[in-house]
């Protein structure tokens, strides 16, 4: 990725429309080549899932004690990825952090698609996914007990609320931008965009309700995003398994989620900045800000890791200590130490100012962070269940071709959604980017937004 071309003339409002609208439309051969690769990977994932449904859950390597294995690991991983998007679109909105404007649309799309990916895993994991509606606890005639005291039921509510609200927030944000797209499109595309834009015109009557509603969405999403991963963590923390039963889990999960989410934002936005030539919008300042957030969340995570170890030792509880000792020294030790290396050691390079704006460094750090965060969830679930109270039930989980292919396929599903999105929708917010540019003034220009 080459150095950014220097921007001589200041960006005008019309430039923003032009620069965003040119990214939408018929893509080139290279795009289709990537799309084919992703589609093939997805097809492999679907084939593996079909196989699993055909032969049963044994194909996924599920046997006691690890009835939760890589599927739940990947489920938690994808839910976590979504968090950075909501942090950027809601929390940073409430803090009026101007730098969010040029990254929030991409990040929000990432959130929606990541949650849509995560949502597949309970279905895949449950096996007979055509009974998925059994997860919804409503009074019924099927002798199913709606147990509202179960953390898994809380999770159903948390995830479905999170998905719904993220989608709504995302679409509401898109409406004025799609209107801009509509006004420059022709033919059938104009009709489609007109329908999606709901006939938005930007009149004062529309804006005043829109703006207020947008603020309220941000206010609703902020506690929601913090609650979602807390509730996901309760799936573990409410159980008595050594290493899981801890009050530390909620903040520990939320922080890790934001940490991995920002890494994914960088992985998606750095190539987009290069391919769409958006150097004027996604500047070094943005990279620096995101890198700093990764650094901070990494430090917080390291603190939680230290707390986890300390608590296990200080509790004096034999099983807590034994579980931790087994994680760090038995067959899964490599995964345990890899997690520390990726999450606590590698991001320390971001203390250097130069590294925070160096594209390749950021990319490599982000890949390490994603790897580390996937293994963090693996370390909680697989060795956690592998070394329980009772040595008789100890066991090792071996991944199979089926479950590995399904997990790789889930990445393809995510990327197919994202790649599709960036070619049909504005992946940079036209309205919000314009809002922070200096407003056009005839007499005595005064700079930008206050």
């Amino acid at each position: 990725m080459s150095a950014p071309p220097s921007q001589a003339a200041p960006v005008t409002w019309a430039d923003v429309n032009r620069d965003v609208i040119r990214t939408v439309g018929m893509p080139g051969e290279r795009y289709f080549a990537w799309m084919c690769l992703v589609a093939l990977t997805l097809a492999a994932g679907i084939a593996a899932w079909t196989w699993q449904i055909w032969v049963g859950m044994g194909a996924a390597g599920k046997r006691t004690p690890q009835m939760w294995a890589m599927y739940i690991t990947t489920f938690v991983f994808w839910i976590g990825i979504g968090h950075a998007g909501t942090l950027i679109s809601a929390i940073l909105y409430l803090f009026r952090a101007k730098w969010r404007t040029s990254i929030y649309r991409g990040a929000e799309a990432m959130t929606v698609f990541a949650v849509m990916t995560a949502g597949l895993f309970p279905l895949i994991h449950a096996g007979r996914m055509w009974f998925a509606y059994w997860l919804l606890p409503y009074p019924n005639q099927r002798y199913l007990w709606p147990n509202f005291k179960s953390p898994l039921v809380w999770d159903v509510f948390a995830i479905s609320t999170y998905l719904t609200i993220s989608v709504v927030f995302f679409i509401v944000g898109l409406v004025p931008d799609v209107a801009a797209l509509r006004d420059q499109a022709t033919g059938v595309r104009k009709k489609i965009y007109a329908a999606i834009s709901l006939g938005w015109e930007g009149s004062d009557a529309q804006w005043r309700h829109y703006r207020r509603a947008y603020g309220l969405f941000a206010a609703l999403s902020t506690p929601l995003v913090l609650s979602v991963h807390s509730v996901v963590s309760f799936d573990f923390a409410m159980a008595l398994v050594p290493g899981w039963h801890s009050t530390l889990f909620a903040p520990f999960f939320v922080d890790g989620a934001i940490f991995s989410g920002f890494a994914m934002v960088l992985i998606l936005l750095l190539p987009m900045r290069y391919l769409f030539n958006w150097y004027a919008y996604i500047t070094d300042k943005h990279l620096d800000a995101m890198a700093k957030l990764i650094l901070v969340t990494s430090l917080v995570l390291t603190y939680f890791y230290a707390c986890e170890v300390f608590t296990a030792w200080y509790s004096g509880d034999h099983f807590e200590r034994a579980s931790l000792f087994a994680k760090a020294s038995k067959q899964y030790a490599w995964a345990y130490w890899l997690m520390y290396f990726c999450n606590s050691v590698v991001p320390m390079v971001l203390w250097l100012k130069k590294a925070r704006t160096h594209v390749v460094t950021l990319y490599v750090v982000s890949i390490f962070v994603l790897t580390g965060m996937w293994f963090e969830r693996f370390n909680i679930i697989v060795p956690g269940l592998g070394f329980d109270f009772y040595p008789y039930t100890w066991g090792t989980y071996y991944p199979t071709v089926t479950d590995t292919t399904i997990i790789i396929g889930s990445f393809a599903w995510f990327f197919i959604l994202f790649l599709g999105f960036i070619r049909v929708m504005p992946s940079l917010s036209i309205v919000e980017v314009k809002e922070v540019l200096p407003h056009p003034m005839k007499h005595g220009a005064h700079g930008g937004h206050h």
Partner: protein
Amino acid sequence: MVTASVLGIFAHVDTTLQAIRDLRAKGFSDLTVYSPVPVEEIEEEVEKVRPLSKVRLFTVVGGLTGTATAFFLTIWSSLKWSLVTGGKDPVSIPPFIIIAFELTILFGGLATLLAILVLGRLPRLRPSPTYDPRFTVDRFGVAVACPADKAESVKALLSAAGAEEVRR
């Protein structure tokens, strides 16, 4: 009374503001202001004569409906399926608070979406006659609904305020 609508197209925030103030001073109050992005100065000027947006009312009613629904669903089903587990009362409020929280957000969010649609009169099936596609790029518009015989004076007023283009 025959009404006419006159549209002035502006390139700048300050000229748009000037036009709104001048029109108000002359007693024209039926204005529609188009802008590509929400601008605080224009909003302040327009909001002066309007009550606060009712969106928040939708949100709070939606949110509270969610809370009530959640407590109703959880408590009522627990009474119907009154299984005692772990020696706990079937109706245990603390775990139900989590459901109530999630449904508060869910219903509150959906009600807010409804508010945008209902209050903002969306979806709009046909563009308004005074709409111009430049309003999503970088131009502002002030549309005035006035008696037909006043149209000429409104036109003059808009031009004087600095409109690039004025049309009926």
